[in-house]
């Protein structure tokens, strides 16, 4: 009896044997929005023949690219059981600070400090994003204040900083390095789209197959248990928050390149879209559940809705109403398709 009781130790089993069925990395619930997307496509096609042209579809995905990066960052943060509202401001303030540091003190419309050489613009921007994420981490993990309100404060503060620095104007003298990514096509599809897809793929792979990626689920699901299992909960959370800021800053670079300037309202009001996309895509606000693929379908759904409504010429007055209605409908569909209560 005792002979069989001793459980295997990891190294011993490494040789492996017949695998009795794939480990379900992907659940059906992750695909719950796919039918919605298909229905939207059919409606789109009925509404306008333009819908299915590659140029329209490419423009839909390109317009999704910046939002999807925020959703990527937010999804990672949500999976490990936190929230970061300030991503919405980071997408604007990070490029602003970078340009402030880089642009010359005179000559342009926007007077910078000229402290750094121009090639530093992108690194500086990313660093600012990282720093913002790290500050959020400090507030949540060291001071232990409520993350929702702390990042809400950051959101307001950073937006204020943005307006303070730019005096409410958009910055149009954007360094060439920023423009490049927003304007270039690779294989006929905007570079930004490829980059987003790549980042989602990397993120998804890390969550599925890397030990640190997998640890996010444990941390979000039960931080105490994760700690007892030897996961450095605070450190990982902090890194994830910083990565969230980094991704938002990168989204800021793409946005700036895409529209050729840093808008004064860059990212304003996006955070609700971000949450809606993530949750409709199956990410739990309580942490520990969801996949990046789901989040991506969430973004696409919302973006397709907007596109179809535009093509369909929905009266502007009723646009927002439909938008809200569709969020609710998508939410209900995703809840019943996945069969899980969402509490």
């Amino acid at each position: 009896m005792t002979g069989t009781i001793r459980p295997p130790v990891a190294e011993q089993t490494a040789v492996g044997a017949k695998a009795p069925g794939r480990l379900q990395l992907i659940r059906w619930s992750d695909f719950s929005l796919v039918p919605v997307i298909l229905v939207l496509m059919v409606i789109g096609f009925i509404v306008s023949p333009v819908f299915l042209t590659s140029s329209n579809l490419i423009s839909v995905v390109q317009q999704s690219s910046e939002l999807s990066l925020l959703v990527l960052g937010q999804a990672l943060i949500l999976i490990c059981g936190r929230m970061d509202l300030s991503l919405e401001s980071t997408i604007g303030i990070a490029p602003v600070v970078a340009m402030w540091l880089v642009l010359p003190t005179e000559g342009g419309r926007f007077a910078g400090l000229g402290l750094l050489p121009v090639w530093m613009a992108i690194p500086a921007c990313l660093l600012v994003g990282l720093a913002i994420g790290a500050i959020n981490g400090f507030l949540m993990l060291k001071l232990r204040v409520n993350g929702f309100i702390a990042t809400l404060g950051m959101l307001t503060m950073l937006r204020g900083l943005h307006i303070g620095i730019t005096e409410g104007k958009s910055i149009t003298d954007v360094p060439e390095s920023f423009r490049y990514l927003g304007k270039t096509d690779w294989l006929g599809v905007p570079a930004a789209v490829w980059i987003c897809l790549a980042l989602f793929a990397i993120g998804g792979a890390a969550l599925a197959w890397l030990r640190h990626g997998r640890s996010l689920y444990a941390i979000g699901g039960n931080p105490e248990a994760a700690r007892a299992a030897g996961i450095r909960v605070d450190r990982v959370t902090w890194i994830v928050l910083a990565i969230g800021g980094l991704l938002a800053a990168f989204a800021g670079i793409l946005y700036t390149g895409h529209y050729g300037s840093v808008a004064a309202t860059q990212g304003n009001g996006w955070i609700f879209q971000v949450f809606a996309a993530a949750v409709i895509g199956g990410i739990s606000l309580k942490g520990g559940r969801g996949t990046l693929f789901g989040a991506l379908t969430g973004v696409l759904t919302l973006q397709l809705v907007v596109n179809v409504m535009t093509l369909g010429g929905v009266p502007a007055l009723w646009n927002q109403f439909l938008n809200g209605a569709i969020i609710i409908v998508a939410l209900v569909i995703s809840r019943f398709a996945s069969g899980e209560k969402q509490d």
Partner: protein
Amino acid sequence: MDSKRQEAPAAVHAEGIVKRFGPTLALDGVKLTVRPGESHALVGRNGAGKSTLVSVITGLHRPDAGRVTFGGEPAPAFGDTTAWQSKVACVYQKSMVVPDLTVAENLFLNHYGLDRAAGGSGGRFISWRGLRARARALLAEYGVDVDPNARAKDLPVEQRQFVEIARALSFGARLIILDEPTAQLDARGIQRLFDKLRELRSQGVAFLFISHHLQEVYDLCTAVTVYRDARHVLTAPVADLSKADLVSAMTGESAGTAVAWHAARKTAPDAGTAPVLEAEGLALDGEFEPLDLAVRPGEVLGLAGSAASGNTALGETLVGMRAPTAGRIAVRGRVVKPGSVPHALDAGIGYIPEERHRQGLVLDRSVAENATLTVTDQLGPWGTVLPSRTREFAQGMIDSLDIKTQGPEQPVSGLSGGNQQKVVVARALARGPSALVALRPTAGVDVKSKDSLLGVVRRVADEGSAAVIISDELDDLRVCDRVLALFHGRVVASFGSGWTDRELVAAMEGVGERE
């Protein structure tokens, strides 16, 4: 008189109860009858459906089929929980306190002594002063020294459990259900509870009592019902049933012979061999005073102590969950960085935490993922975790620990409590620890599983590792080669493997300490 009682309608009678949770059939046409004034035990292995039945007969779950009567009358409508409460009071297996509310309020939750019928003030407004006084008196009756103004979440588990028990018993119901009430209590607490129950029984109150400690069944109950795999197996007077018969009814196998895991009476480990796990001057302010420990290869050390003895804190310090205020810990001579679980893990310390839901499991994730949480660095090259290796590894664990599950992919939340506990053990063993630290490893685990879990601990030691069991359950401590008794943060006694229950309990209770 006996026949007269037979004719009185049953305090509760349930029959043909069927309850499904998705694909799981939790109850398959079971029946149960508790007569007035009877103390009735319900036993069965983990996942047999006991707690589900409790939910059904207390109105928390609606059965898919079957019918429940109280004193011959049909049960109240589903959803009218207040009506159910007048029929039956219950201490659930799950904690049912509201952590942020005070003890007084938890005791009188939703009643507040307002109902005139129940002897209350009959007013519309809650009288906090009166409530507090009543709470204090109620607690005093159980000898629990708790400030009614304390918040429930600040109480130790044991006192919280008493709050729940006191609440259930104070309703004045004729039928009281206790689902594993003793799992969180120390010996003295159990004694107090039993005294109270016997007193109520003498007043004619009926009990349904669920426990995995069969001895308690024999101590307290007159009749017993056994469930196995969601079905009713037998109901019999306790006196007619030997312990071995009871166990074989629960497991469906003829009772095994001597328990396999009992401390092998081999020669005590050679004092000369270098200890595997060593602690010097280890102390944590407010929990335990400086103490030295040394556990040698092949040795299982028991740290016995009741709830307030500081033994839990000691265990958590050993594994790095808490940072000691003084002292050092070493494994095989290597000093472990204090207060760091990853370092402790690397040094070879395995950890079975006390409360599985708090520290042991990520309930939404799969069995495979939970079982491999500590070995994610060994399941693939370059920090990857290969699904195939994860699955294989988990399958191995499931087989060897006999975990009842649909497969490695099933979320842990769908397992029964005992099987969940086995997943926690699997997680601790996954790294092949040289020193295993187990806190109350068999809490809430059925007899058979308990055997196998303790057997695992024993085997770990026999293969040359060291093990520490921190518990107040005598059964757990029987595997140990050596037992230290803690009282108020100090080691008050030390025993070899030949201790008697009485000695050890006395030491844990602090009787005759500081000789």
